[in-house]
């Protein structure tokens, strides 16, 4: 192993320990790594960070086995592509992507949105609450489906700021 590989590996191991990952496999062609840690409660965060740490390896080639599912989505969930903004729900309720059933959705992937623009609605206690974008940018992906129950802080959209 090259000196840089060893340095990377040390950093990787520290990272995995911090997030309590149970098992880790990497096949990068020139490098194969298999790590197994003592069983412990794992968090569901950090997949994308792992991929970044390894460098040019595509995210699909790195597997991190999570030993125990947690009941809530991680607030720190990081998108596979760096620099994307997560729009999270400020309230609990039911998400709707369009102003009324059958109407066109507020936004679609690729649309540019301005800060403050309404990009969805969350129904709570029979009231429709408009969800405004908190940044300007391009809608990359809608993470929830129409009529899906969502909780406080649940990621709704990824937005590329700009």
């Amino acid at each position, binding site marked *: 192993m090259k000196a840089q590989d060893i340095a990377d590996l040390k950093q990787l191991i520290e990272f995995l320990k911090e997030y309590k990952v149970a098992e880790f496999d990497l096949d990068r062609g020139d490098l194969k790594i298999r790590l197994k840690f003592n069983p412990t409660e794992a968090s569901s965060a950090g997949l994308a960070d792992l991929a970044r740490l390894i460098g040019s390896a595509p995210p699909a080639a790195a597997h991190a086995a999570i030993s125990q599912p947690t*009941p809530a989505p991680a607030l720190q969930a990081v998108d596979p592509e760096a620099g994307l903004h997560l729009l999270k729900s400020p309230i*609990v309720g039911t998400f709707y992507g369009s102003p009324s059933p059958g109407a066109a959705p507020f936004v679609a992937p690729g649309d540019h949105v301005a800060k403050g623009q309404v990009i969805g609605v969350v129904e709570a206690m029979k009231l429709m609450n408009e969800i405004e974008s908190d940044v300007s940018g391009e809608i990359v992906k809608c993470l929830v489906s129409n009529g899906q129950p969502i909780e*406080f802080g649940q990621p709704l959209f990824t937005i590329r700021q700009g």
Partner: protein
Amino acid sequence: MLRKVLIANRGEIALRVINACKELGIRTVAVYSEADRDSLHVRFADEAICIGPPRAADSYLNVPAVISAAEIADVDAIHPGYGLLSENANFAEVCRASNIKFIGPPPEVTRLMGEKDKARQAMKHARVPILPGSDGVVATVEEAQDWAKKVGYPVILKAKAGGGGRGMRIVRAHEELPNLFHAASTEAENAFGNGELYMEKFVENPRHIEFQMLADEHGNVVSLFERECSIQRRHQKLIEEAPSLKVTPRMREEIGRTLCHCLKEIGYQNAGTVEFLMDEDGQLYFIEMNTRIQVEHPITEAITGVDMVKAQLLIASGERLEAILPAKLEIRGHSIECRINAEHPQKFTPSAGKITVFHVPGGNGVRVDTAQYAESMVPPYYDSLIAKLIVHGRDRAEAIAKMERALSQFIVQGIETSIPLHRAIFADPGFRAGIFDTKFMENFLAEKN
């Protein structure tokens, strides 16, 4: 039977309610703030919904968030626990309007008991002994002075919308009254949004005695006897025990019968606790009613064998008391509870942080209700109660011996707890002899320093 219940609370009481639901085959939904993501109540519920950021006002006290969670989880009922929204009549009304069963009394009854001066009048009407005092709100300093002359100093001014020891001032002399009136009113305004006050005779060294009541939805009411909660610091209970050494069988029977009659009259439903002061002559006086399950309910469970939370769930499901309770309710043995708080045992400063070691005691007649575990966090946003240690013995002496043994084996590291304080209290000869009143802690702490 209820099918699915949302628990609008956190910590040990949320877990307590979840446990009772599980044992009855009821599905559970937990709600939590971001600070409680790794809590046991979240982990052990069937479903969990994040409802807000750490601050209680934005999460656990956020009525739209709680109701919205109840709707998306499609629950039958909400159990509010204690504190938080449990005595919020508006919340109970919103539940009713949203077609969700609120596990507790009807909103009108909660509202009645929440207005302390009205509660006094209702009790007076039902011949429950009350302290001499004003007939309702005392609007001005002049009125207060008139009433104080009638009642006789010392008097206490109390917030009409209050509780928990706030918005209260003791007045011992005529000259002090104007300033204290304004102080109490301002504190009440800030704490409860309502600065109105009423007045009661102040009893110098009272004992705090409370009666546990249960009422079904068919007009049946029963008393599950009393608890004594005189060991308090700044109106916060530290140790509770059942039965009280000072309540005679005759008093127990008479008060129990009077309260059953009173609660039937006002249409009470579900669990509730009626609080009294006992003066030096052993006379009981009503002070307030809590329309919810209380922290110290386990000591009543120990001496009666009745699971209080299951009783609440069954009552809310429409069951009659005769189907829920044993045919004959009796007091068996003696039970004591210590409230273990995350605070410095001498300075009483709150101690939030990560618990590194958590070993709870066990054994015959020893129960620990807690939502903490090794490596868990105690967040700084909520009250400091982290565990309840309850013992049950054949008599008070055995209960004390069990508590001393259990406290010595309760190991918590990483944060400060009140365990050393509790151990010191149990070594105190006055406490051991049952010689105490609500001034006990003040004197005990003064002696230590």
